[in-house]
């Protein structure tokens, strides 16, 4: 089967529109980057991180950090480490295995320094 020149052009145009449409769709509806895909920009103790945040300001926002510390309280949706870092969990079933006083290492997204409660706030926390 051979196509006429006109048909070839039409076919080419249809394919082009499909590709353009598909890439536009991919761009518009791209998925959220999960915490495991993002680069860890700080790793260390909560006290050290707090010091960095207090001097560094806005650069510590929406970045993934790995922290370690002692659990000082456990809430419904998250835990507090060393009285200075609140870690919110996406999935609260992970909390059931934790105990106050336990030392743990977590990875989470830094959302900011909460000056009402004077603590660091992480969300999407995972236990390492």
């Amino acid at each position, binding site marked *: 089967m051979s196509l006429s020149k006109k048909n070839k052009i039409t076919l080419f145009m249809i394919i082009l529109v499909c590709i353009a449409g598909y890439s536009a769709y991919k761009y518009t*509806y791209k998925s959220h980057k999960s915490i495991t895909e993002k680069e860890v920009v700080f790793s260390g103790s909560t006290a050290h991180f707090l010091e960095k945040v207090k001097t560094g300001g806005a650069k510590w926002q929406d970045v993934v950090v790995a922290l370690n510390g002692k659990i000082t309280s456990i809430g419904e949706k998250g835990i507090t480490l060393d009285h200075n870092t609140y870690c*919110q969990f996406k999935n609260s079933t992970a909390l059931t295995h934790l105990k106050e006083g336990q030392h743990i290492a977590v990875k989470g997204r830094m959302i*900011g320094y909460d000056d009402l409660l004077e603590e660091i706030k992480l969300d999407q926390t995972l236990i390492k």
Partner: protein
Amino acid sequence: MKYTFLVMLFVSQLTIAQKHFTKTGITTFIASVDTFEPIEAKNESTTVILNTETGAIAALLFVKAFHFEIALMEEHFNENYMDSNKYPKATFKGKLINFNHENLTSETKTLQLKGTLSIHGKEKQIETEAQLKKLNHKIIFTSHLSVKPEEFDIKIPGIVREKIAKSINLNLDYELIEKK
């Protein structure tokens, strides 16, 4: 002497236990118009502190913690409209008028809420209603705000003007527990 100590202990207990708070309050942002993709986001990390003696209330949220279904929308929200790098926080400081902790029951009460809302580095006086009730030692606070982007110097380009609601709705949903 023993009694004075007990009385002092009792008084100090009273003054310490005067705050209710949450770190995981839910603030919802709705700017959808009927004809376009829903524009909605949820912030599940809102900090709220209520002084149960005075009715004073303070809230703080991080703009980047708003989660949109569509990642690209979230990107535009942060970069083009809210300038989240420059203005990372949105805050509210205000008062619940005629608040009395002892009058709170499991039945919903409506109170006037007055205060200052600060978004995108701009402040605005707000007056709205809030619903409060008490359930299992928690104070359940819900309220609704309606704001306009231009009130906070947020510019919306002409090309998308029709796709974003003129008035943006904020729903507040906070479960406050006693601060110990």
